[in-house]
């Protein structure tokens, strides 16, 4: 039996970064908002207790904060000729669950994409000609960097980002990223105090003529009170960011920046351990009437609402759209349809330099305490003579030296026994690691849809990912690996090992939780699922917020643009939609 609940103005699906921001904005606008979150309630005091937060076995190895496949699994394949199989454990990427979402256990790299990234198709066509990108489904976002500047700024000030501006109102600032778009003002906090490895990396990169700068960080360099009045602490560089909740109130997340204020509001309610089964549509399919969800006791409820905001992890936004019949599913054989289109990932490679007598002290670290060089990222460099487009940031961000999983040893070292013990002792404190994080450009064949065979515990089809690294992205990554080799050589050291990414994406080893696209934004309803305000073209009282909106992925972590898009969409709802509910952009 389905129990029908009293109507709300807004139902938010998923209470992570974007759900919290939008709930805060819309409750400020006077709306009655309920957030439905399938994972547990979590807060710093109770769940990221400093007495046991640094439990590597529990959180990093057994992945206590992540979604379990028993709740929602997926199927994977590299191309349409294969039969996708369901994963038994999340590996290549680790979706979050619970209040705070993946923003709980992130590292905190907080970027703005380059201005050229937001108009990528136009930009690359103008600079290199349309032929250079004919193999892709590269698209413009439909929103420009300049339009998003204020939203980026608000997210950075909400989160207390520590960094150094590289471009203030068009003037390049020494010590910052000279390739970034112009910002109206500097970061709210100065960069973090650098540790040894990134300092060495920056010196080596600079000796090669590159422009390293402190990675913009949501680990706070100083104590901070954000515009909502919420206090955050200075990061202690404890080395327990990624896969952990922060016990020190010093990593920005919904818990440390929004929820203390949001939870005080009488027009907000959070229902946790409640999983949305589908978005309900009116009989004509042109408007949503609310959502249906199931609680932990198996009771099913209908929550009517005027506005439905999909704020789940990007992949789950797409699945809910497909399960609910919102938008036309993408078909790679025709290139038609929009939901599931332009699924992209991240194109990464790592480098290790082994030293003697260096005392790197890797245990002094934080998720984004490091240095980045963007000289080979995006279109910061001339691709004219090259055989690819796109690029990668080169990051030296040694996040941790945790005892179980951080055991760097040179290739050829036995995996166990006395030789391994000797090597681990020798190299634990003598290894410098850095990596490239590359762009991932959309192709016709990479997409997500509903699996024809495998179903979840409610009988709903699982999401199927069809993905492999495009040849262009492999060429790009190899080019950047060669540049990393040059940096490694400049660092000296006894031995350098620079990886080169190969075709054949493997869903087992961890690579990146930067899954993007699938419900992309744009200006044409034939090639995008949502308009430039993240409003569904097909069901205008549904907004879909997250990295699912990226038309393709840049060589940067997605959370900065995701946070900015939450403010951008909230503005559209507050300033335009509420005054005149309906399509904000005519198709």
């Amino acid at each position, binding site marked *: 039996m389905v129990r029908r609940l009293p109507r709300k103005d807004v139902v938010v699906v998923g209470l992570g970064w974007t759900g919290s921001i939008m709930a805060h904005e819309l409750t400020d606008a006077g709306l009655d908002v309920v957030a439905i979150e399938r994972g547990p309630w979590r807060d*710093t*005091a*109770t769940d990221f*207790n*400093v*007495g046991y937060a640094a439990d590597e076995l529990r959180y990093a190895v057994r992945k206590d904060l992540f979604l379990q496949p028993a709740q929602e699994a997926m199927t994977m394949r590299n191309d349409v000729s294969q039969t996708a199989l369901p994963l038994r454990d999340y590996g290549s990427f680790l979706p979050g669950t619970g209040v705070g979402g993946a923003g709980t256990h992130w590292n905190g790299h907080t970027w703005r994409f380059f201005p050229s990234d937001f108009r990528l198709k136009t930009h690359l066509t103008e600079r290199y000609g349309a032929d250079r990108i004919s193999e892709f489904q590269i698209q413009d976002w439909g929103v420009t960097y300049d339009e998003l500047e204020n939203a980026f700024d608000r997210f950075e000030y909400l989160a207390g980002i520590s960094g150094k501006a590289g471009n203030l109102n068009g003037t390049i600032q020494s010590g910052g990223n000279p390739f970034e778009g112009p910002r109206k003002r500097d970061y709210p906090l100065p960069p973090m105090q650098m540790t040894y490895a990134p300092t060495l990396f920056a010196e080596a990169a600079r000796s090669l003529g590159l422009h390293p700068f402190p990675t913009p960080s949501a680990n706070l360099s100083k*104590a901070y*009170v954000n515009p*909502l*009045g*919420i*206090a*955050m*602490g*200075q990061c*202690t560089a*404890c080395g327990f960011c990624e896969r952990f909740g922060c*016990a*020190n*109130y010093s990593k920005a997340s919904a818990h440390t920046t929004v929820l*203390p*204020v949001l939870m*005080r509001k009488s027009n907000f309610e959070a229902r946790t351990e409640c999983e949305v089964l589908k978005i309900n549509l009116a009989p004509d399919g042109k408007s949503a009437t609310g959502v249906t969800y199931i609680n932990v006791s198996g009771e099913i409820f209908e929550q009517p609402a005027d506005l439905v905001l999909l704020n789940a992890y990007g992949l789950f936004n797409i699945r809910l759209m497909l399960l609910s019949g919102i938008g036309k599913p993408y078909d790679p054989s025709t290139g038609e349809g929009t939901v599931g289109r332009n699924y992209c990932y991240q194109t990464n490679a790592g480098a290790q330099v082994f030293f003697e007598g260096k005392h790197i002290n890797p245990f002094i670290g934080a998720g984004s305490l490091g240095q980045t060089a963007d000289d080979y990222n995006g279109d910061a460099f001339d691709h004219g003579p090259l055989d690819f487009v796109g690029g990668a940031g080169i990051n030296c961000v040694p996040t941790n030296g945790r005892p179980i999983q951080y055991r760097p040893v040179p290739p050829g070292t036995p995996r166990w026994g006395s030789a391994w013990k000797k090597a681990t002792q020798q190299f634990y404190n003598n290894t410098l690691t850095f990596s490239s994080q590359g762009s991932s450009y959309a192709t016709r064949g990479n997409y997500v849809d509903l699996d024809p065979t495998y179903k979840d515990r409610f009988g709903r089809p699982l999401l199927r990912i069809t993905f492999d690294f495009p040849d262009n992205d492999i060429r790009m990554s190899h080019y950047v690996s060669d540049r990393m080799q040059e940096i490694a050589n400049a660092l000296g050291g006894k031995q350098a090992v620079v990886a080169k990414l190969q075709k054949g994406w493997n869903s087992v080893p961890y690579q990146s939780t930067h899954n993007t696209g699938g419900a992309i934004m744009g200006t044409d309803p034939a090639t995008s699922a949502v308009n430039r305000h993240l409003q569904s073209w097909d069901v205008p009282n549904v907004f879909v917020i997250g990295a699912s909106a990226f038309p393709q992925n840049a060589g940067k972590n997605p959370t900065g643009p995701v946070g900015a898009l939450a403010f951008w969409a909230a503005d559209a709802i507050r300033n335009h939609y509420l005054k005149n509910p309906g399509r904000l952009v005519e198709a």
Partner: protein
Amino acid sequence: MKQAALFAGIMIAAVTATEGLASDQFDRIEAGRYQAILSDCAACHTRPGGKPFAGGAPLETPFGALVPPNITPDPETGIGTWSYEDFRGAVKAGIGKGGKRLYPAMPYPAYATMKESDIADLWAYFQKIEPVSNHVVSNQLPFPLNIRAVMIGWNLLNFSPKEFQPNPDKSAEWNRGAYIVNGAGHCGTCHTPKNLTGADKKSEFLRGANLQSWFAPDLTDDPHRGIGSWSSDDIIAYLKTGANRFDIASGPMAEAITASTSQWKDEDLKAVATYLKDIKGSGTPVPQPVAADDAAVRAGKAIYFDRCSACHISSGAGQASLFPTLAKAPIVNSTDPTSLIRVVLEGSQAIGTASKPTTPAMPSFSWNLSDADVANVLTYVRNSWGNAAPPVTASQVKDMRGRIAR
């Protein structure tokens, strides 16, 4: 017909007037609501999560348990059948309806100093709140203390009811502060040490007291144990927002701030700060700190750097609005370490107010620090960075463990 209605109105007004000072007038009810906030009636008479004023959680006194009664106007289980005289007697003299003696867990010795008009306003308000049916058995004291008549003797010894008399040598602001602190605010109920019968030691006014397994700190100008180093603005910020540049409220004071002081008028907060700045401390000299090479201090320092310094910082400076300052903090330098032991064992969450919404928390360390560990780390904290206070013993920690486990 119209005339009849008017007549009836006059009749009712006349009747209520004879009933005492009750009034249906908005300004009186509103003034009474503010008196209820100043007096923090909710702290005792509203159970956490319960209906307002329908009866509170048990108060653990040194003499036994007392449960604050239902003071809503429900005729069966509340004070719905009380007259103004009954109410006035309970609040100002500790004598309820039918001559029933109240125990001074109800701070009538403080409320006795309140002006008649303030009590009348309070009555006006309490007649208007929602009646809630909730039967409370207040008196759970052991024999013979459960015989209310014993309070007659107590009152003879300890209670000399007298309305507040302004001090003509002090400013109006000071006098307003004194009126609130001694009367409605009943600060001394927690912060003034008690004699063997549980009455205030008047000569040690606001010098800190132990109750319900907490230590309510010294509020005098003592710069070491008291709040002598706090400015008026620091006091106001603390009472209004729950946090100032040194400290963040937790424990029973957090409740008092949430339900009461955060809602006080700014001029009342200022008056209270002015008065508190003028309360003299004991003059007891600052003790010599336990030496840095003492075995307990050395062991405690190692624990502090492992467990505490990430938040409270190696210098004990803490972080504003997030982690309290431990260096030169009154509660740290209190002779009685009860509250310190308790927060280490039990953890504590700061309150959230509209201007300080963060609600940071300290976790419990009872599961991973032994009695000796807790004693050592507190001995270190109490004797570092300018602090000086008697060492904490493992047996004090063991005793607290037993008490909070109950």
